[in-house]
């Protein structure tokens, strides 16, 4: 069984900032470590997801650490209302079938999720 952990320096950002952190993994040998910066919607209707930045480490050692810096796009901003929320996140996964972790973050003016 493998595990993966994401440590972010911050979880509140302004659009255009860099998301910086470290991913730490441990366990079995996997084909690749995938790190993604993404946003997704959740709520009452159909969900949407978009990966805006992705890095793949082929044949990672069975355990290790990696620092990363991903640029946050200007849009979309994190927001939440009654029917829909848009959430930014960093996800790390060991493929295939290994540990997965997702850490949510905010990307919006004043580092504060917009409330509709």
């Amino acid at each position, binding site marked *: 069984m493998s595990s993966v952990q994401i440590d972010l320096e911050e979880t509140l950002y302004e659009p255009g900032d860099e998301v910086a952190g470290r991913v730490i993994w441990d366990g079995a040998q996997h084909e690749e470590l995938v790190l993604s910066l993404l946003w997704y919607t959740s*709520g*009452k209707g*159909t*969900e949407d997801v978009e990966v805006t930045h992705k890095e793949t480490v082929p044949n990672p050692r069975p355990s290790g650490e990696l620092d990363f810096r991903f640029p946050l796009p200007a849009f979309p901003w994190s927001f*939440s209302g*009654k*029917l829909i*929320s848009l*959430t930014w996140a960093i996800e790390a996964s060991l493929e295939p079938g290994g540990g997965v972790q997702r850490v949510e973050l905010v990307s919006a003016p004043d580092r504060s999720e917009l*409330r509709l």
Partner: protein
Amino acid sequence: MSRPARTNPFRTERIEALAFRLDGTSWPDLLERFDTLNRRAALVGPKGRGKTTLLEELERHFAGRGWLVCRVRLNAQRRRTTAEERRAIEEAGEHVFVTIDGTEQLSWLSWRRLRRASRRAGALLVTTHRPGPLPSLYEHRTSPELLCDLVGELVGTEQQPREDELVRLFEAHGGNIRQCLRELYDRWSDQPAARGSDLS
């Protein structure tokens, strides 16, 4: 201000993550029956009874055993198959699992053509509101107990609405579980955060 959608326990991703509850049969028996029907069968029931959920679980089951899934989704806004879908169904071979959700949308003639086109596919499973197009693999029924069970899984026993309230909700929506859960979404989001668990 309403509570944020991403924390709503009745949001789409949580509803879709609910496992289908088989009633009166088991997975091995269901799969055996599908084999007995030469893998040509229908999931039958009115709207909001979990036909699509069960169809998708069976798709995952077959995909996990190396089958290719050829999926067609029809609804009131999309009542016809595309030329590409018809071609894929016609070319489907021995290890292709063809699924058609919403067969009731098709005309009699369109259905007959699709059924004929799929004759070489290893398996064909459709959903429909009424028995008829193919032998029934499973007939979907719902109950207030099922609704209570699903709501309990979504919100936890401490926050679960009263049983009589869920029974009223079930009856108001004529047994349509999907509509019940959508109403519970609205009730939950309309409460101020401080009120916590009351969904009635």
